[in-house]
């Protein structure tokens, strides 16, 4: 039999290999990326976004960042709605990754304003103090090649206009990268769906806590707010935080749910307690310091 016949052995081994291949690799094409998992609101990438995606690939960002949110409690709270198959139909190749040295980026689009990304890419540690992400400011020095990008759009069969291609002149690789990041995960309206509606009255648990007791809370501010609002609330990408007169519950709601249209991300994942601490800290800490 096959024990002494190499040709027969090769054929049988190939057969053994092909059974599992057929069932788990070939057959799924009948179900995946068909009408059944199509999502109407998911659109192809624009020329600028697609180029940004190709730069993301070129720089190997997928070695440290995943792009798929799993349907697990902590993960959905941290990153946003879990990923759906229909969101990836225009992704060639897929970029789900296998290691989260940095955070998942499947839902990064719309979380921060553009300016945050420009600053963060140029100097990650200026925004996130102890990060190990390398700086990518040099991308701004490289201009785009509109002709090549048009060719890519044709190969992919994505719709584009000649104005769109013309607009690429004068843009650089960083612009493309930021455009791509801002597109990620926005194919479905998940942000609107996750905004918490606060019912009942909000009650500040830390009224009149006193300046000294607030000191440890400065860490929460530094870790989560300082990158955009400055080390002393003087404002930077985000506005100066002159909130002393603001109503406690209004301020709570802004921090908790964010202001998506103005680029303020929600901080509900910190939990109500930390958000309340921030409310009190923002309102009183530095004013109290000045009065001392």
């Amino acid at each position, binding site marked *: 039999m096959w024990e*002494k016949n190499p040709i027969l*052995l090769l054929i049988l081994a190939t057969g*053994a*290999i092909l059974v599992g291949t057929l069932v788990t690799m070939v057959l799924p094409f009948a179900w*995946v990326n068909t009408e059944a998992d199509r999502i109407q609101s998911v659109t192809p990438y624009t020329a600028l976004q697609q180029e940004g995606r190709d730069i993301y690939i070129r720089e190997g960002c997928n070695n440290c960042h995943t792009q798929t949110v799993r349907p697990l409690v902590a993960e959905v709270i941290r990153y946003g709605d879990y990923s759906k198959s229909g969101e990836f139909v225009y992704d060639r190749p897929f970029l*789900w990754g296998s290691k989260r*040295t940095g955070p998942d980026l499947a839902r990064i689009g719309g979380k921060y304003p553009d300016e945050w990304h420009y600053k963060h890419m140029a100097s990650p540690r200026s925004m996130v103090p*102890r990060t190990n992400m390398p700086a990518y400011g040099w991308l701004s020095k490289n201009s785009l090649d509109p002709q*090549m990008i048009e060719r890519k759009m044709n190969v992919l069969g994505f719709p584009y206009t000649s104005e769109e291609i013309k607009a690429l002149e004068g843009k650089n690789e960083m612009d493309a990268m930021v455009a791509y990041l801002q597109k990620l995960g926005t194919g479905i309206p998940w942000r609107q769906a996750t905004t918490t509606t606060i019912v009942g009255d909000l009650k500040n648990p830390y009224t009149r806590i006193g300046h000294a007791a607030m000191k440890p809370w400065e860490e929460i501010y530094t*870790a989560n707010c300082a990158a955009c609002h400055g080390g002393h609330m003087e404002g930077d990408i985000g506005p100066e935080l002159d909130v002393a007169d603001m109503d406690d519950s209004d301020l709570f709601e802004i921090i908790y749910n964010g202001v998506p249209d103005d680029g303020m991300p929600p901080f509900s994942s910190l939990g109500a307690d930390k958000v309340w601490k921030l409310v009190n800290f923002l309102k009183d800490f530095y004013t109290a310091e000045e009065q001392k």
Partner: protein
Amino acid sequence: MNQTAYDYDIVKSFVNWSIVWGLVTVLVGVIVSLQMVEPALNFPPYLTFGRLRPIHTNAGIYGWGVGVIFATFLYIVQRLCKTPLWSPKLARFQLWFFNATIIASAITLLLGYTSSKEYHEMEWPIDVMVVILWVAFGLNIIMTIIKRKEEHMYISLWYMMAAIVGVAILYLVNAAAIPVSLFKSYSAYAGTNDANVEWWFGHNAVAMVLTAPPLAMFYYFLPKSTGVPIYSHRMSIIAFWSLIFMYLWTGAHHLLWTPVPDWIQTLAMAFSLMLIAPSWGSVFNGYLSMNGQWHQMRENYLVKFLIIGITFYGLQTLQGPMQAIRTFSAFIHYTDWIPAHIHMGTMGWVSMISFASIYYLVPRIYGKNLYSIPLANLQFWLILTGQLMWSISLWIAGVLQAGMWNAMNPDGSLTYTFMETMVEMYPYWWIRVGGGLIYFAGVVVFIYNLVMTVRQGEPAVTTESAPVAGRA
């Protein structure tokens, strides 16, 4: 009694070049591990983590791994078939083309020409080169087997043939892409399909490059080193069919909890658990072959490498299925646990067997005794220590980070921000750098020992049959 003129020159060349690429792999590994702790060590555009890490993995799998496979298979096939190579010229071409492919891969990856698909990052022109290379290699091996002078086919030949067809199928399907230019292409598959094809490839590259060929080496070099046959040839055959059948179902265990259909994930999980049986079939076959021979663990350094290697294979094939279980994957996936797992397989199993194979080969193909057995023992302890430091620190890191990612407050909010979990990794990443450096030192000792063997080793008095060269 050896009348056959075996072709050893080609084996020598492949041994040399595989070691060169092995050194590159470990060196780049140490560099990227330093970049993880100190981002200022990234020098854009070429020397960044994102571009170097694929060079580390591909030099490891294709330069070192496949290089050793070429060297050992070209040797083993001649001896098991009792006939010279079918075509020494083709093997010579294979050598040059192999190095051309690896160099082209390294350069294009540095330049940022990548498909981004893990363990298959090289762009389409290099895929074409790999296909030519593999055909040249496969044809030579298969033709040599067909014209063999020994009627019986030993199990190593079976694994070799399965690996040849397996890699061919996997690589071709996953390489399918539409070129835009010489150095840019788009995958023929999109999104979820692409993911499923890629991990069908990715996991079975582990089967067909990092499992079947090292098993072929193990089954050959263990009995050759101990001088006693393996425990059971028939058991190795049952394990062979089960292994090559079951592996192909398991790719989606890399995609648990993703949008890939649930039934594929469930099949992958089930088959991963079933795979323990054939994997341990080989482990037991190895252990049982040592019956009455365990004293050789002390006396014969080759046996030490081989048995510790198969032990790591056994551990790897228990840990792997564990990670393939949905609940455990939910906890551990995407953390540093995963690279720890991979490196137990590559540094502990595949490389351990590869070092042993080369230690066996070099004295025989050069006709000289090994320069220093104490140095070989030193290398053994260096690479074992380096690898354990590396893996254990990152298992701990992985569990720690997974715990922090999942920690929640009573009100249902997260206890830690992402950055709070990441900064906890730094101490463990430093330990990894240390482990990498120790492992690197082991490889340097290895190379020194071999160079000295070739230059100053005493001529071996005995014929190749006597395992004297391998005894302490």
